[in-house]
């Protein structure tokens, strides 16, 4: 009985996955985003090597005599105030941004999954405590909280910034996981699983969590983009990363003081930042469409 029931569920699960993949595969926009993000990932993994192919491989090999030169053959993106190659800096910036984006989102997802699942599945007191806790975090503007916390920490490395960002992003996701888990908990196959005597742990692992992940996945993708924006905004304000870190936010903050004479300082980091976020948000959008059975044609 149990075997039969489990088999049947897995079959429909596999079917659903196949149709999600089919609907993704047919959208050209999905491939554009995937390729763009793939390229960015490659840049982030080996920024030095790739920058070396196009210009200078070392972002800190600067020549003051070359200060603020517009794009040329030797420096395709031009040079900045210190005479450093902008392309190399932008490539290394991609590493920092993607790293913070993924680390913060991963931390946030883990916390949200644990707390959201316990609140949604067990309900009662756990639900009430966790829900009020998310309310408290969602009760104030995100930037305000992040600025205050970042201002009080002694060192602001990429990891610390990622931690602070995760601290303020988990509540949104936890709320989503909670409502998603709640709707799955009420479905018949979960009642059936508990009727045949499965333990709570096994029901959660095999039925509830896998079936609640769909809507969460789309939001998580978008969230990586939002975290990257948040990091660069905080850095731009002067409360995020600091030199010698290499980050798009830092490059844009310097560019702001010189953009009258050298708009290329602003252009390239801004363009990379925007394109990264655009690909992530669009991908999240496409995933949401594909995972939502109502939207599938």
């Amino acid at each position, binding site marked *: 009985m149990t075997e039969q029931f489990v088999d049947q569920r897995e079959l429909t699960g596999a079917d659903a996955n196949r149709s999600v993949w089919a609907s993704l595969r047919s959208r050209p926009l999905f491939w554009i985003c995937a390729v763009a993000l793939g390229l960015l990932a490659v840049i982030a993994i080996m920024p030095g090597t790739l920058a070396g192919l196009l210009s200078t491989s070392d972002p800190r090999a600067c020549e003051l005599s070359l200060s603020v030169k517009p794009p040329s053959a030797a420096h395709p993106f031009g040079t900045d105030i210190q005479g450093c190659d902008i392309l190399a800096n932008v490539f290394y910036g991609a590493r920092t941004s993607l790293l913070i984006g993924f680390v913060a989102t991963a931390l946030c997802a883990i916390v949200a999954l644990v707390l959201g699942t316990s609140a949604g599945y067990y309900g009662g007191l756990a639900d009430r405590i966790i829900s009020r806790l998310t309310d408290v975090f969602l009760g104030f503007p995100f930037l305000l909280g992040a600025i205050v916390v970042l201002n009080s920490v002694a060192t602001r490395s990429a990891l610390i910034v990622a931690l602070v960002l995760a601290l303020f992003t988990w509540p949104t996701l936890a709320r989503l996981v909670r409502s998603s888990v709640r709707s799955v908990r009420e479905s018949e196959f979960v009642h059936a699983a508990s009727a045949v005597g499965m333990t709570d742990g096994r029901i959660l692992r095999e039925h509830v969590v896998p079936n609640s992940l769909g809507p969460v996945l789309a939001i998580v993708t978008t969230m990586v983009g939002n975290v990257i924006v948040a990091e660069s905004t905080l850095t731009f*304000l002067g409360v995020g990363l600091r030199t010698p870190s290499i980050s798009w936010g830092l490059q844009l903050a310097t560019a702001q003081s010189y953009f009258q004479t050298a708009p290329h300082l602003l252009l390239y980091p801004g363009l990379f930042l925007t394109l990264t976020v655009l690909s992530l948000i669009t991908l999240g959008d496409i995933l949401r469409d594909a995972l939502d059975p109502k939207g599938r044609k």
Partner: protein
Amino acid sequence: MIRYASRRILELAIVFVGVTFLIYLMVFSLPGDPIAALGGNRPLPDNVVAQLRDQYNLNDPIWLQYLRYIGGLFTGDLGTTFDGASVSSRMAARWPVTITLALTAWGIEIIIGIGLGLIAGLRPGGAVDRTILTATIIATSIPVFVLGVAAQLLFGLQLGWFPVAGVSDGWPTAYLLPAVVIAVFGLAAVSRLMRGSVVDTMRSDFVRTLVAKGMPNSSIVGLHVLRNSVAPVLTFLAIDLGFLLGGTVVIEGIFNLPGIGQLLFDGIRTHEGPTVVGVGTALIVIFLVISVVVDLINSALDPRIRHD
């Protein structure tokens, strides 16, 4: 209804206490001694430090300081800054700029967002719809500060249409550019919400009836579709006003507008604890009150929400 309202207000009180305590704790456990900083390069005499610490109750445990602060709030006292000014008078001087900025941005969101959503939703799948959808996705992907600096460069500096910074030109010239920049994010969301809502309304039975009885298209859209589709957008617009009021830190910095966001940011940088907590509390109150009012109005309109 009364039961639902009292439950929501009780929840609001819990969240309010939680959030303000959290902010209080974070701000007053910041490293650096604000009293020592008052003296600048010359260290203050010990008895002056002791007297000031006593005056600002810095020797009490944090929870007692917090309780005293909350007590003060109920009598309208938001505290005193370390240089002796009252926090509420500091804030009173800054609010007009931020409120003007936020309301201008809100107006832009309402007019353009609802307009674009309506145009897109009337012909879903068409070229105009696709263009608007693509444009709004791209617009939301550009971080506010990048958009702000780029707009400053293009419209302020090169074209010279708007002042580059400051509020000396008054409303609307000085506020329009920064308002458009912070409106972009909400505008995109409003237009997408509105589009979906219009598409749903156009498919509904009553619109089909109106078409069947021969009502002209313009009256159907103007009298019926617009009014029926706008309801879900209103909730978002209300919540977004809170975000606009609280999220002006970045844009006020770029365009050098002396608003509440700059006051907050300067307060954080100069360890001016009472100012930070005061502004933070004000922003939280705005935010929470708006969300409870929205919930109450929604539940009055749709009683099913109360049983959630």
